[in-house]
Each structure stands twice: as C-alpha cells, then as structure tokens.
C-alpha cells in the first residue's frame, strides 16, 4: 500500500473523481459518465422495475409464491438440466477449443464461425429445429426411440437445448487462453518424460482451469434463463418438464406481474451469486499466475 497516495486522496473531498490533474490517461470523466448512464438505462433501470413489482408483495406472499410446489419442481428441472448441459459443454467445449487452436485443417475458419451460431440464431428457431429432429417421428427421434431414448418432451431434451444455446460460452472463453499458452510448455512437459495424459492433466488443464470454470459457469447461468429454445422441446408437463422461465411466462399470461417478478428475482439472485463467486475465485487464481501473493 502507498499511504501517501491515500492521504492525498483523502484531503480532497472528491478524491476519486476529481483527480483529473494527476491522471495520465485522458477521458476518465467522460467515459465513466457514459458507461454509468448506459448501465443504468440498460441494466439497472429494468431491474429496479422488477423490484418495484416486488414491493407490492408481503414477505409471506413472496415466500409462498417462490416455494409453491410446481415452481420448486421447475427449479429442480432447470438447475438439473442446466448442470448437465454445462458439464457436457465443459467437456466438448474444451475439445472444440483445443481442435480450433492446436490443429490446422481445411474448413477450420468455417467451424470457428459456426461456433457463434447459437449466439446469433433466434433461440425459437433452435427450439423448433431440435423439437422436429428429436420428436418420435423426427430424423433423430426415429433412430433413438427404438433404443429406449426419448429426448423430446423429457429433461434430456431440455438439457440438449440448453447445451446448444450455451456452448459458445465455453469455447469462446477457453480459446483465447489456449492460444496464449505457449506450445513450449507442452514440449517442456514431454521433454521431462510426461506422457500425453499426464501433460494434459497436470500442465495444460490447470492452465485452462480458470477459463474453463468461467465458461462453464456462464453456460450454466445462461441455461438457467433460457426460454425460447427449450419450450418447444420440453413438453412442459407440470412437475416434470416445466422450466422456471416457463413459470414466469405462465404468471405473466395470468397478468400476475408480482408473481412473475418474484420467481424472476430468484433466478436473478442465483445467477448473480454464481457469477460473483466465479469472478472472485478467478481473480485469486489469476493473481497467483501473475505474481501476486497467492
């Protein structure tokens, strides 16, 4: 710590924002102002609206809404499917990132571009496509059904739709880290006698770990909120294949705005807590790699 800097800041009433004379990088005031305004309009204002809706509920009412049996069942379905989707994506996203970074092959650019498709595609399109494919008379469904796998209208279908919409999060967070990792590190491990498996487990994976956890976490959080891609394939049977986002939608259709907000706030808190936890954990890990005290 530098006590003298702190003291200088403390002497000025607006030490944090008024340091224009000592700051070398220009534009802090303007860029910070625009950022805060933008975040307020796009993020904070709608959220305030959400909490405004909640204000109409008593705590007991709030609790009753969010712990209603059908809603709780939807949490289970959503979280369970999202967890499976995130784990599947962690494995295959890592593999895809690996293939995209470490090898060169014809069509690599195309595959790279395809990775972003789930981001760009309207989720309803994805949902309808998946539902058609995996319905019992669809291309895939027809093959899987005789084997005893039912995908459409089960939680497997939900997980599949979630995995589809969230795979880019894993690929796109792991890819740059893998690109930054010098190939010599690999070679060093091998020259020391490590087999491919050992080198991957003890050298490469720990290196990618923070990015992989972040990407998987983002994929998980994204899956919690996914709606469009899932409702077409989920079947939406109460207590069985209803997701939380659908519960919010149902409340809205019943003009129960307060109820919808209550359920939405649960999703929001869970997502926020998870993102925050990942951020803190990752910060600690990265400090260690970059030479802080760890």
């Amino acid at each position, binding site marked *: 710590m530098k006590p003298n800097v702190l003291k200088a800041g403390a002497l000025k009433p607006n030490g944090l924002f008024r340091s224009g004379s000592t700051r070398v990088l220009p534009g802090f005031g303007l860029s910070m102002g625009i950022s805060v305004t933008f975040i307020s309009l796009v993020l904070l204002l709608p959220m305030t609206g959400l909490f405004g809706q909640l204000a109409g509920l008593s705590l007991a009412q709030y609790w009753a809404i969010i712990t209603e049996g059908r809603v709780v069942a939807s949490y289970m379905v959503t979280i369970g499917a999202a967890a499976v989707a995130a784990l599947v994506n962690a494995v295959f996203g890592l593999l895809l990132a690996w293939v995209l970074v470490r090898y060169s092959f014809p069509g690599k650019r195309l595959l790279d571009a395809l990775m972003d498709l789930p981001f760009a595609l309207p989720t309803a399109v994805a949902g309808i496509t998946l539902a058609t494919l995996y319905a019992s008379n669809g291309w895939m469904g027809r093959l899987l059904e005789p084997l005893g796998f039912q995908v459409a209208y089960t939680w497997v279908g939900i997980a599949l739709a979630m995995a589809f919409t969230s795979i880019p999060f894993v690929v796109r967070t792991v890819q740059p880290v893998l690109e930054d990792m010098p190939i010599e590190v690999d070679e*060093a491990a091998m020259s*020391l006698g490590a087999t491919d498996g050992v080198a991957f487990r*003890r050298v490469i994976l720990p290196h990618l770990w923070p990015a992989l956890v972040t990407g998987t976490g983002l994929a998980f959080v994204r899956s919690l909120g996914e709606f469009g891609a899932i409702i077409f394939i989920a079947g939406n049977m109460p207590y069985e294949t209803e997701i939380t986002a659908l519960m919010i939608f149902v409340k809205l259709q019943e003009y129960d705005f307060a109820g919808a907000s209550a359920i939405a706030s649960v999703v929001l808190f869970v997502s926020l807590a998870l993102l925050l936890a990942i951020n803190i954990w990752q910060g600690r890990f990265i400090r260690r790699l970059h030479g802080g005290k760890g």
Partner: protein
Amino acid sequence: MSIRLQQISKHFGNTRALEPVNLDIHEGELVGLLGPSGSGKTTLLRIIAGLESADTHPRSGKILFGDRDVTHVHVRDRRIGFVFQHYALFRHMSVYENVAFGLKVMPRNRRPSTGEIRARVFRLLEMVKLEDFANRFPAQLSGGQQQRVSLARALAVKPDVLLLDEPFGALDAKVRQDLRRWLRRLHDELNFTSVFVTHDQEEALELSDRVVVMSNGKIEQIDTPETLYRHPANRFVFEFLGDVNHLEGKVQNGILTCGDARLDVDLPDGHEELLLRPHELRLIETPTAHAHLPVTVTATVPVGAEVRVELEADWLANPWLATIRHADFERLGLTRGQRLYVEPRRWHRFAQQSPRYSPSPSTA
C-alpha cells in the same frame, strides 16, 4: 554421452531448413550452434531433442546418443533436458513443483521416493542458488531466476544430454553475462554433454568448447573458438564472427588502388576485395611507403578497454571501424573531423566465387 548425427536433413513443406548434416559431439563437450536467424540452428537442436523429426525421404539420417540409436525415439524417452528461450515454466506450479515435475511423472517403478525427490530438488535449487525461492511462483521471479529454475528442472531427471535453445536470449546484457559464466562453471563441475543455440557470436565464443557455425541450413565450420577466429573456413564465417571493414579495388603491379587510396599487396593483377578487422587497423599521422589510406574521423566512442573510431573517406562506400587503445587515442589526440592515415597490420581475402573456399589470411 556423445551425440552423433549422420545425414540429418529437414524440409518444411518445400523449403529446405537443413541440408544433410553430419555432426559429432564428444562426451562432456559444450557445443554452441551459431548462426543468423533462419540458418537452421534451432531446427537442428530440436531434431536432436526429438521435438522435430528429421526427413525420412529420400533417405533417413541417424541420431546416436553414445551407442543408442534414438532416431525414432520419442522426446519423452530420449533422456534429454531441454531449456527454452522463454523458460516455458509451469506457471501454476511453485518453483519446487516445477523442478520436481520430471521426477514425479516417472513411471512408478523408476520414481524416487518422496523424500528422495525432495532432497534432489533442494540440491538442485541450491546449485542454482534458489533454495530460498522454492515456494515462489514463476511470475514472482526475474527472468534470470526463471531461466535458472528451468535449468534445474531440466537437470533434475539426470538427462544424457542438455539442450539449450537461446537460453539467454530473453535476458538483459548484464544478467546474460553472469548466467553464461555460471553455466560454464556448472558444466565444468557436472560435466554433462550440452548443445546450445545462439545468434550471439560473443556468447558462442566465450561459452563453447567448439562452435558449429551455420548458415542457410548448412554447417560452415566446426572448430574451437580460437581456431574459428584465427582461421575462418570461409568468408561467411569470417564476416559473421566480428566487425569487418571492406577494401575493394584494382590490383596492378602489386599495388591495390581505390580512389586516392593505395596499398601494397602481394597479389596478382585484377579486381580484389580485402577484409580487415577493426583491431587490425593502426591510425597514423603520416602515410607509410606501403599504405596510403587517408581517412577522416567521424566519431569516437570509448567502450571498455578500447576506443571505437569511425572513419570515412571519399574512396569508401561504407565507413570503417577501428578499435584502438586508450593510450593511442590520447597520443593522437583524436577529435571528430581529424584527418589521418590507416595502416593495416593484417588483412584477409577469400576467393570470390566460392564462399566455402579455404582461407588465405596473409600479412601485409
């Protein structure tokens, strides 16, 4: 362990990186591979390590460590230690874990016990003077310290040969000097066979028992630093090993002329190009009977034990560089713009057609 390369060549696609190369490195020798970038020195080192495979077409060369044919042995089984230019440390592991890595990944039947590993790692850390840093992470160390960790890590597995790829290239001049001496001492102490790559002539000459000079995927000369400097095999080696001044002109009746410069040479008539080392030039106030080379001083820079003097003249395409002793510098009272004469103590000449021609250094 001795290293023997027989007819090793390498193509990357259609570009030839290495012409068929033969090289014998004796047990306990410290050999430098020296050359400009693109000369194939790193490729050769990586082939020895097994990180790159040599051509198998049209025919396959051979790599022997002692009597062991390692041509087709994977890098992890070659028993080499490799030190990378940018250290390539495992950043998520402490210094201790980095050094212990090679021991910990050994198959169970060869792996030393935990206590033994600990003892060996600390012995190595002591050797590289980093025993107090065992629990630090690489990012908390300076470049020189990181390279020492990387060296300890490579030596931990008791490799047959130690290979270093521009080991000091990423470090600043002072640290580089220290590490160089330290590596030389370490080598003399432990007596392992090692090969290192460098593009720095001084480093190669100072550190190596023998230097392999390479250019364009070819070995130009393999010799001790002393021989290399005194008897370069060809013009490339001569020019690459130090600063060179050129004197080009027509020889008639044993006198080389170039503008108003004249120099007595013992050569047949014709066009000639002579090469002169900066320290082989003497600066004098009046021309001699043998040499009339008028020049103007354009810059003087005292560097260490000598003074570097830059010289220009109408008859010179490129300025000359002379290095003289401080005593001479003071005696002549050199200043910029001063007009002087050069008397070469020695000059060198290589046949023009063939850069691989044997040397004919002679005294003027």
